[in-house]
């Protein structure tokens, strides 16, 4: 029996259309827009001015506080302006706009592609370097990696879990990375193990990527302490809590972090970025982005410089298909719909999903038939139908008592409801109100 998490979960159609598309390097754009807040935590502080010349890898914004991340220029050129723009999450953010001129890299960066396996840095140097080079979680949550690696006193990490589940339908960025850079992932994983002081790392991959499982299992043999665990396909297995449950069979208590149960989870893309940072001294300036959709003629995976406007990726696949109704940043279950296409690719952009009218439109909802399906599929063991009622009636006290804050916003409930009820919309509303009430109480 393959491992998986126990409670809830769904099987949305996988639609991994771009799984066979080799990662292509997207040509340099004429201009990049680099927001200073691409991570969870405080925005970085801008270090450049209009007119400054920058190279690839020049630091352009500095982390403020511990939970924050440095931002580097992804191109060489001249800072054209600093402005407020919308980013992919739909918020207005300060961003640095750079006009591209050539492709000059900082000398400190090793641009060769030869594999470097010897790790020369010590634990603290590794964490220091990861922090300096602006590495954040690439799975989508963009939590600064150095924060996750700094274990609070009194806790110990027992296991490093590499999240290679990619359970969101359509997305294939991690899948391609595993096929194309298995050794770099292993070295990155080893570096992370050193940083955490753990002897054991487990890479969790869902069974629907047999080629990646085979490749990494083979590659892992050359490295100490790393094993690959095939997992049953079930959404949302890539959610941290569910993944730890599946692999480590431990449940993170409500409101606590993975370290509580001795686990640290890092995305497979992050492991790769860590490899490049430590072995090649390369900051996080590019990432793999899947561009896909049912009507897209050639679903693709691109290596894209951070700050490239989404429009550029769309142009490269031949423009938006005619029947496009919605463009999503990320996967269909948890991604965000884009307002317009001039927003830039950021550290957290794993895919651009183009949906046609039929897929994009919501159906009118009817009364709850109490089928209980939302309860059955909720991976957190909540009662979404009830939380929606609390949201509708603004009963925040009851919502809190029924653990609305435990919701991980995976969308399984809304996906499943046969009455098409917008459960998660109301639950989010509940979460934000209950969150406010809880903060005021403190």
């Amino acid at each position, binding site marked *: 029996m393959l491992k998986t998490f126990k409670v809830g979960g769904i099987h949305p159609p996988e639609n991994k259309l771009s799984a066979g598309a080799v990662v292509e390097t997207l040509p340099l754009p004429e201009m990049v827009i680099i927001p200073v807040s691409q991570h969870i935590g405080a925005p970085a502080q801008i270090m450049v001015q209009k007119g400054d010349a920058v190279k690839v890898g020049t630091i352009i914004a500095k982390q403020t506080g511990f939970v924050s991340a440095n931002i580097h220029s992804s191109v060489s050129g001249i800072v054209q302006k600093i402005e407020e723009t919308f980013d992919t999450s739909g918020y207005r953010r300060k961003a640095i706009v750079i006009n591209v001129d050539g492709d000059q890299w900082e000398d400190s960066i090793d641009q060769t592609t030869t594999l470097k396996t010897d790790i020369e840095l010590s634990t603290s140097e590794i964490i220091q370097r990861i922090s300096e080079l602006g590495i954040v979680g690439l799975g989508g949550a963009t939590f600064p990696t150095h924060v996750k690696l700094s274990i609070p006193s009194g806790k110990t990490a027992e296991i490093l879990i590499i999240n290679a589940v990619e359970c969101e339908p359509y997305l294939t960025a991690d899948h391609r990375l595993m096929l194309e850079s298995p050794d770099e992932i292993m070295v990155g994983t080893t570096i992370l193990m050193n940083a955490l002081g753990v002897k054991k790392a487990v890479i969790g991959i869902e069974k629907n990527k047999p080629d990646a499982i085979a490749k990494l299992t083979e590659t892992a043999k050359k490295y100490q302490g790393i094993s690959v665990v095939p997992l049953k396909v079930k959404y949302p297995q890539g959610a941290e809590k569910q993944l730890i449950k599946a692999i480590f069979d431990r449940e993170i208590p409500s409101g606590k972090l993975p370290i509580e*149960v001795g686990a640290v989870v890092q995305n497979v893309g992050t492991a790769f970025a860590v490899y490049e940072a430590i072995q090649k001294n390369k900051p996080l300036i590019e990432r793999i982005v899947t561009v896909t959709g049912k009507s897209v003629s050639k679903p693709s995976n691109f290596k894209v410089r951070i700050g490239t406007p989404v429009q550029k990726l769309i142009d490269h696949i031949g423009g938006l298909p005619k029947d496009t109704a919605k463009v999503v940043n990320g996967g269909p279950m948890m991604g965000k719909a884009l307002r317009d296409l001039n927003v830039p690719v950021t550290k957290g952009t794993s895919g651009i999903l183009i949906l046609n009218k039929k897929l994009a439109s919501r159906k009118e909802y009817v009364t709850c038939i109490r089928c209980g399906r939302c309860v059955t599929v909720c991976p957190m063991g909540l009662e979404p139908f009830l939380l929606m009622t609390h949201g509708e009636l603004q009963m925040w006290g009851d919502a809190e008592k029924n653990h609305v804050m435990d919701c991980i916003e995976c969308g399984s409930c809304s996906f499943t409801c*046969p009455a098409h009820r917008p459960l998660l919309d109301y639950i989010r509303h509940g979460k934000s109100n209950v969150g406010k009430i809880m903060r005021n109480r403190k």
Partner: protein
Amino acid sequence: MNRKLIISPSPHVKGTDSVPSIMYGVVFSLLPALGIAIYFFGISALIVTLTAIGACVIFEFLIQKYLIKGKVTIFNGSAIITGLLLAFNVPSSIPIWMIIVGSLVAIGIGKMSFGGLGANPFNPALVGRVFMLISFPVNMTSFPANRFAQIDGFSGATPLSIAKGALKSGEPMSDIFDKVGNSLNHFVGNMEGSLGEISALFILLGGLYMLYRGIITWHIPVSIFLTVFIFAGSMHLINPEQYMPAMFHILTGGLFLGAIYMATDMVTSPMSTKAMLIYGVGIGALTMIIRTWGAYPEGISFAILIMNAFVPLMNRYIKPKRFGEEVKNG
């Protein structure tokens, strides 16, 4: 770029099931059982069924359109199910006007008076059936001989009522067995009974289809069957002369129809699996209590209605197990 993009929160994809697709799935799954009813009872079974369906749909339409003056939702298929299941719970010889009255009660009182689909606490078809049982006791308890009935003097009564009467008058068990027919006949449906309840086999097929489609889960039917099996089995073990064997109780009467269709009605059954199991055990136990000691030979309808009444309470106090609730981390 002046194309208007749709902005809405995630998730951006949706499962394929809808209320109508579920309801018509249930209707579809009931067709084999309807077929076998027509086979055993003739065309009257079909007439009664179609009348009940028609009446339920029309009453729902009239009430929604003219009484409530709200949205008409007769196409979602739920009224069809109520009609089908009501018909399945009456003898095929029922006078047509009675089934029409029963349909009115099922839809009008059982469903619409509470606010329609989703708001009714009791299974509407059972509300209709129990109303008919109380109002028309003679017609509701005399069953036509099916066309293959070949056992002497075997007509007009179901195996359950024959057994109950015979046990009361102290007939020896071997004679009773001769009268009620064997388990194989019970299983395929060659026995007296309400038109849709006779064939355990065909109801089971429908149930498996619903299970496959994810319309029902195993929890409620299995807990009912197990409870009845254990209850009846232990009574029979204690006194084999006074109590019928477990398989007899499982295969006769309305247990299959009740456990697989009537008790699993989404609206009136509990939400969490824990509560479903308790609900199933309750139905099984109450059914056996009524069958053994009650005035009626069959008790599943009452048992389900009684347990329906506890569902709101169960939903309130029996919560699903939350993630990270009890932490037993090694």
